[in-house]
């Protein structure tokens, strides 16, 4: 494991992703998702919206880091907000 050069931030990052996946699975077992149409142009399930949210979060971070002077925490905040909006109304 030494060669994988873990750091605390990346470890937290992957734990959060794993936790989200586990949470989604549990949620699915408790109440199965129904495909529906929100403000997105396509009908999506819960998992689809999560994926769209995570992918756009990655791009939000890249744009913030690469082309603005804003802090990465700002990008994180926006992403979380966007993810919640997407999950609820997407």
């Amino acid at each position, binding site marked *: 494991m030494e060669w994988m*050069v873990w750091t605390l931030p*990346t470890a937290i990052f992957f734990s959060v992703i794993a936790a989200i996946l586990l949470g989604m699975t549990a949620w699915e077992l408790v109440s199965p998702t129904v495909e529906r149409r929100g403000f997105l142009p396509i009908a999506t399930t819960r998992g689809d919206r999560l994926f769209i949210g995570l992918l756009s979060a990655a791009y939000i971070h890249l744009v913030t*880091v690469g082309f603005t002077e804003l802090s*990465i925490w700002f990008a994180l905040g926006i992403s979380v907000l966007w993810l919640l909006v997407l999950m609820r109304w997407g």
Partner: protein
Amino acid sequence: MNKVYNNRAWFLILPMLLLVAFSAIIPLMTVVNYSVQDVFDAQTRFFTGTEWFETMLNDSALQAALLRQFAFSFTVLAIEVPLGIGIALLMPKRGWQASAMLILLTLPLLIPWNVVGSIWQLFTRGDIGLMGVGIRELGYAYNITRNPTDAWATIVLMDVWHWTPLIALLCYSGLRAIPDAYYQAARIDRASKWAVFRYIQLPKLTNVLVIGVLLRFMHSFMIYAEPFVLTGGGPGSSTTFLSQTLTTMAIGQRDLGPSAAFSLIYFLIILLVCWVFYTAIMNSQKDNTPQGGA
């Protein structure tokens, strides 16, 4: 087909999942770890945060390589897809000619990628290559090591040579699946050739073309060995595509951090393009077949 809901299917997936995860997830995690550090070796490393991402996104050489990459991918797709469909339409339907054509067409697909580069190097060299010497005899000073336009044209030609057969074979097999009754009906209706193509053949081709375009986009976006052997990315950096930039950085200069950050950006781009494409196709299929397909 109506699928049964059964979570025990996970047991059938499990062996595959473990193997692919071993090959995919562990390395991906490591790349993420590299991307936020300046790594000399496992003991000597410094946390750099998002610095590498910032550098990479603003690196003009990489931006240029990215643009070249998109230009290249769309150029070869724009040539190979129509050409492949055309060849599939021209191919004999049955008999020994059909199998002979199939074998010959498949040939370029089975040649190791760097050998493809070597073949074209031998073919286009100004001193010993048939094409190189031939074009010079015609009076054009063809030179892929000096002239960027020649280098570009040659790489596109090489890719067309290498990969058009894939599209042609996919389309050919799609066309073979059309029952003769369809054509008979079209003949009775006196349908024009174009109408036959547009309303009978093309709809049958969409499925296989989706696979073809996806595979072609992914592979052309990762192209490495062929241009590396043929032009070495030159002249200058006119044919240096993303993979080569990345490999030089990662292996040649051992800049683990920056190249890892760049890898992730690269991966995200491919992921986005393919996801958009995949979703668009899946949704259009859903509209066409209301009873639900694969």
